[in-house]
């Protein structure tokens, strides 16, 4: 679907989903039986937390390629470093999303300028990237509803 070698098969991704009429995935949280048994030691705050424990990652090939292009050409990358960055990426996305979502609920529902995604108290790296994005023509505003 995306032209990469990763799977979009939800069963392999460890989540269940079903198609709605528009072809959109609806993510259903897992029941407590089945694969969830090894998560029992975690605090069972609710099925949403179980879903987060599923650890959805971006495909490692894509991540590794971006890393490789970033470092000097003669450099190499350890395998566990690639896997680790893969996890960091998911953490980064979740982090931005939760901060922005919080912002969205605090402000009136509407449009947030790209710069506002950097909430006060948020880590500096997000400011870096959104400041960069302000230079991208056309992508001036984001909207979370």
């Amino acid at each position, binding site marked *: *679907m*995306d032209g990469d070698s*990763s799977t*979009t098969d939800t069963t392999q*991704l460890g*989540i269940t989903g079903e198609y709605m009429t528009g072809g959109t995935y609806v*993510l259903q949280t897992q029941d407590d039986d089945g694969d969830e048994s090894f998560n029992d030691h975690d605090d069972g705050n609710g099925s949403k937390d179980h879903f*987060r424990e*599923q650890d*959805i990652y*971006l*495909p490692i090939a*894509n*991540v590794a*390629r*971006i*890393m490789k*292009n*970033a*470092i000097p050409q003669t*450099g*190499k*990358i*350890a395998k*566990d*470093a690639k896997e*680790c*960055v893969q*996890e*960091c*990426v*998911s*953490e*980064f*996305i*979740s982090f*931005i*999303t*939760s901060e*922005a*979502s919080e912002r969205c*609920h605090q402000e009136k529902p509407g449009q947030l300028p*790209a710069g506002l995604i950097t909430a006060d108290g948020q*880590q*500096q*790296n*997000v400011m*870096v*990237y*959104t400041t*960069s*994005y302000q*230079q*991208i023509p056309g*992508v001036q*505003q*984001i*909207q*979370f*509803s």
Partner: protein
Amino acid sequence: MSGKNMEEKVEQATNSKNISLPVSRVRLIMKSSPDVSCINQDALFLTTKATELFVQHLALSSYKNGSGKETNTLSYSDLANVAEETETFQFLTDILPKKILARDYLKSLEEMEKDDENL
């Protein structure tokens, strides 16, 4: 962080309209956050692009900061070090703990037990 370096990267990123990360997967991860219902297309694109830059920034910072100069390899410990030392990456410290050798850990456990016995 050198501003000039960042400018070059932004140019690279903005000049290429291609994104090398699967947008649908990014959306999946975003939706795993609580209270997120709909995600605007621009926001999704923005996040995907931001993630690309994040990977570049993390990889390069770790490589420069770490032992890459000697071994020429970016290792896990480079990442753990940069997470601890750099403010911008501190949100990663929970998932990037520094590793210690099992035997060192067992040694320190033994020493702790000895101390308890002595009390």
